């Protein structure tokens, strides 16, 4: 933490943390308080431009957009957290085993990872959702699985590099079990690029979730989702252009926050990157 503070000049870190902590506070607050009831409909009050009562206006059901943006942070953080947890855990395990064991096992695993990476963009997630159906949980699992190959590659290169180092060789000599060497000895030494990858994947998962929800294949109502809100706002683009800005800006800032954080972590942990 001290080294983090010492680099207080790191503008990415400051702005990134500022953005993310704002969203985090909004999320925590949403459990206790939102300015209006998130699901309270009031047709008489639909599509009202931002005013002093409804800061970001109201949607086509007269629901308060600001409150829904607040609650949308829960969906965003939930999807990001689940996707990154799945991606990092399985990716590190698969890539770590491939890199550490090497040989034909490595070859087979990495060819499968390459094949998974060959599916462009959200196609892999779309395929999983087509089969298993949309929804918050399925979306986050699909996005998590989608991120495994990229993380496996990063983990693998770290493990390959470190398995020849003396501390690993000497641990082997004194009979430490391979699993312990891999995850207690090597993993802490190769974790920096994985932490950067986790932060980038958080951003990527949120962008992908927004895209899927926009297509109507991600988070389903009544769960609030920024992507879904953007989808709904498109019908009112001509009559109520302000509707689209709150969810759009929320997604952009959230993703930007994670990008900035990942840049900052990379700059701090890898001095060569500058």
């Amino acid at each position: 933490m001290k080294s983090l503070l010492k680099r207080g000049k790191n503008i990415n870190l400051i702005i990134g943390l500022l953005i993310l902590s704002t969203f985090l506070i909004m999320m925590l607050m949403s459990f206790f308080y939102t300015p209006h009831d998130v699901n309270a409909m009031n047709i008489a009050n639909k599509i009202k431009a931002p005013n002093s009562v409804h800061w970001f206006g109201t949607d086509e059901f007269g629901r308060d957009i600001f409150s829904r943006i607040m609650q949308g942070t829960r969906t965003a953080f939930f999807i990001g957290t689940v996707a990154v947890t799945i991606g990092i855990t399985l990716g590190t395990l698969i890539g770590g085993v491939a890199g550490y064991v090497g040989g034909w096992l490595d070859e087979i695993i990495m060819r499968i990872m390459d094949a998974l990476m060959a599916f462009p963009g959200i196609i892999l997630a779309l395929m999983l959702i087509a089969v298993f159906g949309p929804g918050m949980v399925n979306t986050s699992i699909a996005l998590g699985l989608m991120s495994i190959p990229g993380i496996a590659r990063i983990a693998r290169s770290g493990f390959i590099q470190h398995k020849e180092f003396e501390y690993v060789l000497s641990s082997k000599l004194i009979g430490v079990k391979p699993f312990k060497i891999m995850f207690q000895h090597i993993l802490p030494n190769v974790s920096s690029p994985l932490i950067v990858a986790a932060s980038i994947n958080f951003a990527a998962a949120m962008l992908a979730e927004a895209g899927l929800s926009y297509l109507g294949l991600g988070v389903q109502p009544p769960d609030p989702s920024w992507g879904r809100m953007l989808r709904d706002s498109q019908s009112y683009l001509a009559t109520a252009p302000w509707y689209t800005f709150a969810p759009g800006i929320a997604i952009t800032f959230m993703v930007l926050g994670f990008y900035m954080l990942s840049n900052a972590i990379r700059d701090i942990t890898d001095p060569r990157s500058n």
Partner: protein
Amino acid sequence: MTYTIRRIVLLVVTLTLVSLITFSVFQVIPGDPIRIMLGPDADEEQVATLEKQLGLDKPLYMQYAQWIGGVAKGDFGQSIRFSKPVSELIVDRLPVTISLALMSVIIVAIIAIPLGVFMAKRQNKPSDVVFSSLTQVGMAIPSFWLGMLLILYLGMTIKFFSISGYVPWSISVKGALGSLLLPAITIAIPQIAVMFRYVRNTVIEQLQLDYVRTIRSKGITEKYVLFKHVLRNSMIPVLTVFGLIFAEVVAGTIIVEQVFGLPGIGRLLISSIGSRDFPLVQGIIMYITVVVVLVNFFVDILYSILDPRIRMT
């Protein structure tokens, strides 16, 4: 030559695995896929007919062999909803998606490459710092929202652009451009950000190499150094990124076609997921992925021709 052979073997392995993954995922549809596709009112006879039509009464390996044999010949199966071959449905919508993807890639190239070279010379000056931060925002904006903003600020105010629907090239070139330009820009912007960063960093790296110092010491003008020598050498690594950019652009068309109501392959894919037309979904996903894999293969081969060092390793 050995590089090319190795690359071909890798291509075959990747395509085989891609087909196996695509095939397997559709084997694990929860519940009875036939009943899902036909809806709750289907009787036993309809179920049996469709099962036979799709070959689902045969063992798995036979089903796979039959499917992959068809794919190799360009037969991606039969759509349930349209009762038409998947390949025919794809071909119908191909002009839209190809035009869109090509336009996006061209926009990325003509904006990102000159800009990257330009900013590399201004490394760490205010204009470079500002622009580099802008690229971060460009990568963070969801493409479909960007599309909506373009509709709002350009599509609705400038008559040239149509904000929904597609005009074929054969009917009106102006109309086609008007219907494709905004979506192409939408897809391009995040990729411009990615490409710009890559070009900028490659040129900066090249400028630090010995050969640049040597030609500079010969008294050659800086412009000549940059555009004759550095740009050429930078373009080779930049070429490899084009394979990745192409994959991202193709993925981008899926969402952006929805935003602009373009009748392309992406729109077909999304609507077929909605209607649970599994053979069509499977066919489109396989088709898109094969095209992307092949494009990347050719980019790699081209790369090895342009840079003989690759073939040595």
